């Protein structure tokens, strides 16, 4: 009688755990299903979305707060990766969006990127394999203060910088975070005027948002294969460096991988993306996150400038979110796949299948041995 009660209790406990888990999975699924990736979302919705995605996909997604903005808001990333006991040290891919506040299509893309991976990794063997070898760190919005400011009213929509207090002698807020990184800081394509939109800050890495990225990525430099920073507009794929007289040691490969990505992007909706260094195809600049990343030794570092080419510029219509994100995803995936395959010398069989096969063989041998007492 006691034994039966104990088993019944255990059974009921398991049943309630399963139903709780599936409830939260359903909730997570529902909120993800109802989240409209073809609309622009204010920051509080993006924070909520990150929680939902993590809760709904615990085997793939975890979050991390790695810094605070000037106004004290969390700088949060989602880490996408699958557990893999076979791989001793996973390699890293970094994707960030929203360094510049008004470039709304960028955070929209980071959300889309996560959604695509979450929706397809179970049915896409290649993607699943890559997630077993790589951790993909995605920061949907780096410049949270600036992004929130662009949502304040009609007159703030085109704000670009952070929202740090005016420096001494100035009455203007904000630093251009993409001129504040410790990479030839303060040399070209910048202004020392606090009111300018390319104001590079009072010193390299003076801004908490830039410091947060450099601190976090700096700790993972040896494992990081690739750094993608997403902006708009212009339809460009920019490689390091922003200084006209400095070349990356792997310039040729950066160009070739970039051109391949641009070709993949064009296949999606016919949109052309130009590949080159910033001084070639845009303007010289210094202190960018892309440059800092290449300087510390991460081999592949690109700035994506998404749609469009001037018709709407930063006010890209919501109807274009889906096509813009589809082509950007194709481009990002092209680069990620290249760096992954280069690092893991991928054979045609995924790692999981190879190890699975060897387990089957081993267990078959053991079975025969145990049954017959003879090794086959």
């Amino acid at each position, binding site marked *: 009688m006691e034994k039966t009660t104990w088993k019944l209790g255990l059974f009921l406990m398991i049943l309630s755990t399963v139903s709780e888990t599936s409830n939260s999975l359903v909730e997570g699924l529902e909120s993800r299903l109802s989240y409209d990736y073809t*609309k*622009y979302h204010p920051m509080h919705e993006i924070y909520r979305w990150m929680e939902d995605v993590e809760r709904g996909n615990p085997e793939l997604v975890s979050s991390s707060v790695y810094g605070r903005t000037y106004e004290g808001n969390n700088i949060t990333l989602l880490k996408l990766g699958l557990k893999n006991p076979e791989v001793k040290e996973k390699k890293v891919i970094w994707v960030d969006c929203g360094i510049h506040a008004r470039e709304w299509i960028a955070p929209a893309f980071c959300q889309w990127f996560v959604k695509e991976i979450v929706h397809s990794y179970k049915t896409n063997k290649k993607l699943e394999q890559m997630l077993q070898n790589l951790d993909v760190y995605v920061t949907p919005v780096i410049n949270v203060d600036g992004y929130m400011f*662009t*949502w304040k009213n*009609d007159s703030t*929509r*085109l704000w*670009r910088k952070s929202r740090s*207090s*005016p420096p001494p002698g100035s*009455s*203007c*807020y904000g630093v*251009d975070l993409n001129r504040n990184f410790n990479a030839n800081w303060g040399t070209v394509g910048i202004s020392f005027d606090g*009111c*300018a*939109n*390319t104001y590079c800050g009072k010193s390299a890495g003076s801004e908490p948002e830039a410091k947060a990225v450099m601190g976090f990525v700096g700790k993972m430099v040896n494992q990081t294969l690739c750094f993608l920073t997403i902006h708009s507009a*212009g339809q460009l794929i920019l490689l390091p460096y922003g200084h006209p007289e400095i070349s990356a040691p792997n310039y040729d490969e950066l160009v070739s991988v970039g051109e391949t990505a641009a070709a993949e992007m064009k296949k999606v909706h016919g949109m*052309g993306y*130009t590949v*080159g260094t910033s001084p*070639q*195809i*845009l*303007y010289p600049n210094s202190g960018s996150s892309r440059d800092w990343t290449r300087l510390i030794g991460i081999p592949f570092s690109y700035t994506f400038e998404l749609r469009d*080419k*001037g*018709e*709407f*510029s*930063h*006010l*890209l*219509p*919501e*109807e*274009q979110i889906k096509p813009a994100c589809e082509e950007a995803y194709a481009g990002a995936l092209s680069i990620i796949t290249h760096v992954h395959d280069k690092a893991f010398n991928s054979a045609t069989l995924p790692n999981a299948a190879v190890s699975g096969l060897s387990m089957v063989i081993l267990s078959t041998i053991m079975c025969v041995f145990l049954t017959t007492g003879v090794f086959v």
Partner: protein
Amino acid sequence: MATGELNPNHYPAQRAAKVVQHYLNTQYGSPFRLFGLHNVQSGNAEDVADSGRKYQLEITVQEIISNTTEKCPAEVLFPRGEQRRSPQVQASCEELLKNTKAQEEALFKQYKMNPSLLSANNIPDSFGHMEPDSRPLWHLGIVASSFVMLNESTENTLYNMAQVANITQLETENEQLKFDCHILLHEMVSQEIIHWKLLFTWSPPEGVKVLQMEQLPHCHEGAKPPNTS
């Protein structure tokens, strides 16, 4: 400065080509005809004695509303001198000048017969949206701002119109429609948003003519912290 044959994807040719776009819009732009730069095929730059720098370009221009493209040769001269002067442009893109007369006359008549004066703000809005009725006003704003963008362009700038902050129709006694507008330009190299006030007229036979243009100083937020968080 790059001289001789130019890489068509690099910024010197691209910036010069953008000036051609602005020029075409000032000459031929209307609520039903708008030009965009699609591509640069080739370019050449040379210094011209004391005049300035001349760019010779082969570009592909797109007529945005009909979504058609045409290859056009063009020349842009950026003048040198003590006083900054606007670039001089020559371009021929004849095939893109499709017949928009009927549509323009219908719209013109509609506006003329409207009992109240038109007014609209934030075209497009923060989400890139605009009401269908605002679209022709957006096009007019782009054409009018092309006069400013053409005037202000140098080898060190790349202008696009970011938004029509406000456009208001004014009374006229003559055949023209008259508008007052506040536009926001995006200058790519400095990444600045520059505010301009424009007074312009439009009619189908005359096209857009700018009567007055004035750059507005942009008030940066003061050092006082805002009341709302």
